[in-house]
């Protein structure tokens, strides 16, 4: 009997806590539980709030996690509409666009971020993905080299640099770039494979 009373007590307490939690808390809790759709629905009540653009961005992210890319593009697009200055929303929309291989549209938004913030790392990283998708190897090589200069410890830009050189047939340059990747991540699978002659 006592045990039931204890359980009942906790149920009441937890219910009471949940009843008091904000839409944001509920959304974060549901996301942590992997319930992305419910986490997004929890933010419906924030439409008119001062953080409406943030809510839309977050819903865009939650839709992206569910593989609902068109819905994600729509949410991020609405977030940009509410706050055209938002660099995060523009970086955010590149995620579902890249997933749909809409390279040029993703590059367009990345360029808009870069116009505002010249060396925004996320925007440059997404732009490199778009350039690779479009097989613009010369453009990618030049771009990745510039990013690598600005972020010397970063291996990602060097990987794109190496891939671009490899596609351009510049084997020695590709090996040099992959060698620099291995200086930063000694177990990097792609770089190790290429250096071993198994690209």
């Amino acid at each position, binding site marked *: 009997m006592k045990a039931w009373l204890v359980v009942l007590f906790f149920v009441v307490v937890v219910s009471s806590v949940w009843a008091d939690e904000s839409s944001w808390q509920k959304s974060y809790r549901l996301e942590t539980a992997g319930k992305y759709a419910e986490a997004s629905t929890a933010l419906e009540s924030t439409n008119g709030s001062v953080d409406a653009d943030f809510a839309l961005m977050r819903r865009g992210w939650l839709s992206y996690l569910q*593989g*609902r*890319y*068109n*819905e994600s593009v729509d949410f991020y697009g609405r977030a940009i509409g509410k706050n055209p200055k938002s660099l995060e929303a523009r970086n955010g929309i590149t995620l579902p666009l890249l997933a*749909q*291989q*809409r*390279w*040029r*549209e993703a590059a*367009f938004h990345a*360029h808009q971020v870069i116009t505002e913030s010249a060396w925004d790392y996320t925007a440059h990283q997404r732009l490199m993905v778009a350039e690779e998708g479009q097989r613009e190897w*010369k*453009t990618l090589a030049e771009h990745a080299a510039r990013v690598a200069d600005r972020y010397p410890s970063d291996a990602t830009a060097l990987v794109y640099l190496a891939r671009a050189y490899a*596609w*351009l*047939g*510049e084997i020695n340059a590709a090996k040099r770039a992959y060698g620099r990747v291995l200086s930063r991540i000694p177990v990097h699978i792609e770089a190790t494979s290429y250096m071993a002659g198994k690209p």
Partner: protein
Amino acid sequence: MKRTYAIVTLTAATLTAALAVPAWAAGEWTTTAGAQVVYGSYGSSTQRDQVTGYGAVLSSDYLERGGFTLGLNRTDIKMNAGYEDIGQNALFASGKLNFTPDGVAGRLTGRMDVHVINNDDATNDTDGVKAYAPQVAYLSFDKRRYFDLGYARSIYRNDLDVNQFTPTVGFALNEGADWLQVRGWLIDPSNVARAQGESSTTALEAKLTHWFGANKPLGLDNVRLSALVGKRIYAVDPDAGAVANLSDVQRGGVSLGGEWKLGKSMSVLAILSRDNYNNATLADDYSLTSGYIWVAGKW
């Protein structure tokens, strides 16, 4: 009936009315403009001597959402003595919209082509031609598989309509270094008397494209080999943006082409072709050997 074939060509136009786009801004549109010339010589033809043509095409895409193409082309067929030459103008307009539904691992494209052709054919049989050609296409995200289903309805004067279906598959080979496209041509003219006795024609066309890697022989970016077997008449070609509105029956053909990329924005395409034709009315089998050059810039 005056026989003729038309190499007509391309180009086209399209509209894309429904591109739901936000404000226009630099970088959102990718535009290609090009010019083309063609010269062909007929072999063993009772009526035909040679064909020349030239034209221009403007094509523009809005990001990956859609785009349009507009083209104008002039074709002149010089006939042998005793037959009247034919001069023809063709307008081509094409619009497309792309879709990426979440449940489909690739891109769907809806496209609509319109052809309007006028010439000085005294019989009016091949003059005033209009063709409407919708198409739905699928391209997988990894760009290794392609499918489209095209339909065309061509409307001619003097009691002739033509229905055409062109199911097409394409797939990548050799890690994407090669692309093979196979297209079926199923064409049904409504009036046998206007189609040299053909109530329907069937043909199969295969096109193989090979891209060179870093080592480019003669500077070539890619080479293209194409072959057609079977028969086709009054074909509406969605790749070339052309209508074969002059009425002889094509019986096979081959072509070989190469493309050069000049810098980041210019390209040159050259194609040599040999096609065989038959005029059933005159029991005339003949060939056409032609050369085609296309120069384009992209920005």
